[in-house]
């Protein structure tokens, strides 16, 4: 029986939950090790040893210590290629290239405006930080343009990188979950026919439901 891998960070962190979703898709046993960000634990020397930028998540298994959620996901897919969802990162170079392209689109085009909106609309109120209405408007406009591109793409293929669920779709789950369920801007997704259909499909996967369960547990 393999030793469980370690993931450091809170389940409610979007980047941490990206890694958890991947581990669950691949049936990899893990331990979630808490990092108390409210107390600044992620900026302390002990933590900086495993993530020198002071961010979550960090990841450890018996062979490696890694950070950056998307590279942790890729590593998990390569190391555990033969178990769980085998096509998650593609089974040939062309499929992989398409997944990497949409992973980059997520990281470069979807994530900046969606992260800003998640912070402003879901987290700032909880942290008693004043919302920046200009930032909200600007990022909503940016995200709308990105989702227009997604709407067209998802009219051509079932999922972003092709007709199978992949790491590229998975990578969108954390931010979209907050926007659809913890803010009043869910219609950005649900008012677009293809994006709405895609969101329903990817968010009802067992692996994602488990992650959401973990997020809800921790925030009790």
């Amino acid at each position, binding site marked *: 029986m393999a030793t469980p891998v370690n993931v450091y960070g809170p389940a409610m962190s979007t980047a941490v939950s990206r890694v958890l979703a991947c581990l669950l898709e691949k049936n990899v046993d893990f331990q979630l090790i808490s990092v108390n960000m409210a107390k600044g634990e992620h900026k302390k020397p002990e933590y900086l040893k495993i993530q*020198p*930028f002071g961010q979550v998540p960090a990841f450890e298994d018996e*062979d*490696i210590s*890694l*950070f*950056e959620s*998307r*590279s942790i996901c*890729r*590593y998990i897919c*390569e*190391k555990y290629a033969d178990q769980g969802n085998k096509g998650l990162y593609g089974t040939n*170079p*062309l499929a*992989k*290239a*398409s997944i*990497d*392209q949409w*992973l*980059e*689109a997520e*990281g*470069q*085009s979807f994530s*900046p405006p969606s992260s800003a909106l998640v912070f402003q609309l879901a987290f700032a109120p909880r942290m008693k930080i004043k919302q920046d209405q200009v930032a909200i408007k600007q990022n909503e406009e940016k995200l709308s343009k*990105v989702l227009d*591109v997604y709407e*067209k*793409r998802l009219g051509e293929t079932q999922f972003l990188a092709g007709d199978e669920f992949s790491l590229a779709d998975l990578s969108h789950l954390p931010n979209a979950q907050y926007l659809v369920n913890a803010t009043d801007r869910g219609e950005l997704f649900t008012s677009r026919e293809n994006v709405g259909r895609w969101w329903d499909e990817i968010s009802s996967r067992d692996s994602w439901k488990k992650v959401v369960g973990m997020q809800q547990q921790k925030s009790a």
Partner: protein
Amino acid sequence: MVVKVYGTVRSACVQRVLACLLEKEVDFDVVHVDLEAGEQKRPEFLVLQPFGQVPAIEDGYLKLYESRAIIKYYAAKYADHGPNLLGSSLEERALVDQWLEVEAHNFNDLVYTLVLQLVILPRMGKPGDLALAHSCEQKLETVLDVYEQRLSKSSYLAGETFSLADLSHLPGIRYLMNEAKMGNLVTERKNVNAWWEDISNRPAWKKLMQLAGH
């Protein structure tokens, strides 16, 4: 088969791709896209790259965009030709990927914003946001302190060999040093400076600099 790269030889993201193709000795043609005239936002171009950005590539039937996805594809396709830019073991490849993600998420945005505010907007006759630029500069100092520490332990970001992770930084650092005139961020850090000297003197990068007329 010649790879068609759509964009301009002066665009940082296009340079990321060309640097990789030059390292791997893959023949390419740059198909010029007139960014100033907004050609990248026209319907004919959006077919290739629906976000209206450069680069995009065409290689036979393959169409691909996002520079970091493109370089990963070619580094893997030609793994046995030219320098190995990906790492040899699963762990090495993961470290290359990790530092490529660091470049994409911790480094690139700061450099992009700095260059936009201090160089691009003024060139267009518009005022740059100096407060924003200063804030980015401070954040970039913190990021480069981490690089300084990292590069005290290994010659390159992912280990002892030059990889995509180092390559990916070349265009941005060049903009920072030569156009935004913030070379001190690099030269004031002993290890970062040595690393920059090394990677920017690679023949493939020098060839690209010639092509770009820098």
